[in-house]
């Protein structure tokens, strides 16, 4: 596992350096601006791409075949991608927490809401996408990713609409402080975490059956 994480780290460093910069810029803009929901949540969406991006590089460079010759179990191979996803999610959450602490216009409830939605965003997409990637490869898996993004935004729009929040209307975001909605947020976080774990186990099952040509 350590070997796979190390390899992914080298690839992240080579290919995804710009992601960190984009995250910092977007969070900085959200700190300087009035808390646009898009700027705050975009880094989470970006980091949710990372496990699939790494798998794409693996397939393109034939690492997926080479690793099949090494003493590495398929379960570990799959797990390493999910762990990378968790690490990226953790980094984005930590950066966002710093931004939210630095900006004093957010209420504790709103901070919690933004952290919660970021947590959900960073997990739900890879949870949906990775089983497809491990089953069909990254080309077809990517289609599933775009579908999942569309699905997520449609669901977010409906949810935000029902809560009276609009991404364009920042005053609505900053006014969101209803403690009564906290259980709903917690439930959403738990559902996303459960989806991630189920996806992880499903991907292991799928990849163990997959043939590597």
């Amino acid at each position, binding site marked *: 596992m*350590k*070997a796979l994480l*190390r*390899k992914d780290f*080298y*690839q992240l460093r*080579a*290919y995804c350096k710009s992601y960190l910069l984009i995250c910092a810029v977007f969070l900085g803009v959200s700190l300087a601006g009035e808390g646009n929901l898009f700027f705050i949540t975009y880094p989470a969406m970006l980091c949710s791409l990372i496990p699939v991006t790494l798998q794409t*590089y*693996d397939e393109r*460079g*034939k*690492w*997926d*075949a*080479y*690793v*099949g*010759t*090494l*003493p*590495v*179990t398929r379960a570990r191979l799959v797990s390493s991608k999910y762990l990378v996803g968790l690490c990226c999610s953790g980094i984005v959450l930590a950066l966002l927490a710093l931004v939210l602490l630095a900006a004093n216009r957010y209420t504790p409830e709103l901070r919690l809401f933004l952290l919660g939605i970021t947590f959900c965003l960073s997990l739900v997409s890879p949870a949906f996408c990775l089983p497809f990637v491990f089953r069909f490869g990254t080309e077809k898996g990517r289609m599933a990713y775009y579908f999942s993004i569309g699905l997520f935004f449609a669901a977010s729009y409906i949810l935000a609409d029902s809560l009276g929040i609009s991404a364009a209307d920042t005053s609505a975001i900053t006014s969101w402080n209803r403690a009564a909605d906290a259980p709903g947020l917690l439930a959403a976080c738990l559902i996303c975490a459960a989806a991630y774990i189920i996806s992880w186990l499903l991907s292991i099952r799928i990849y163990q059956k997959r*043939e*590597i*040509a």
Partner: protein
Amino acid sequence: MNALEIRNLTRHFGDFTLDSLNLTLPGGCILGLIGENGAGKSTTIRLILGMLRPDGGTVTILGRDNRDNLALTKQDIGVVLDEVGIPECMTPKQVGRVMADVFTRWDAKTYGGLLERFSLPENKKFKEFSRGMKMKLGLAVALSHQAKLLILDEATSGLDPVVRDEVVSILSEFTRDESHSILISSHIVSDLEKLCDYVAFLHRGKLLLCEEKDMLLSEYGILHCRPEDLPETGVLHKKLSPYGAEAIVRRDAVKPGTALSPISMEELFVFMSKEAK
């Protein structure tokens, strides 16, 4: 102990079948798997390594069934594939660090020595390497964890003659230790002729033969004669033309004193493949 035993290994694809393959690689020997493109060499290797699932048959590697804890068995196997598969952004130094966590018997000193011997710069990215350098890095990894069995899939194809010769000498060195064995597949028969103790001809998923190389070459010869002078038995393949007949024959099937030209592995393979069509 045999390094590799394949028994009735079968795998069906749409229009291709690897048909009841039986192969044995004795310990301390080199077995060359020869076949044209699409003959089933890579399929065989992927079935050995558990990357593909067989429809039937068994594979035993170093005395262990490949269905039982293959990850543990792979600690004793070094593999170089046609496309090496090391991530393009990584340097040999980084590859060494990763492999140290993959293999329990990783020997950093041996790896460093091989990088030096192969003139591979430690800090140059894999994507900047030539094909020969990539192959050498793959070999350096395969030779740095005290592997007992090397499996090479088309590892010499696409290399220039100088690098190919170097690779061949490295592999010869590896088998000086009697516990080391090599399975090497290629369609470049001349490389295998230099290297192998045993050869297996694979054609369209079927094993045409698997024999000791020296015995095979001493067993057959090329006979040039008139068509009516061809022996009735022992003719493996014949080519008739207005100028006469050319045939691969068993030496014991022709009259003593008959002049036979020595046969090369390549000629034998081409003739046998044509015969099998």
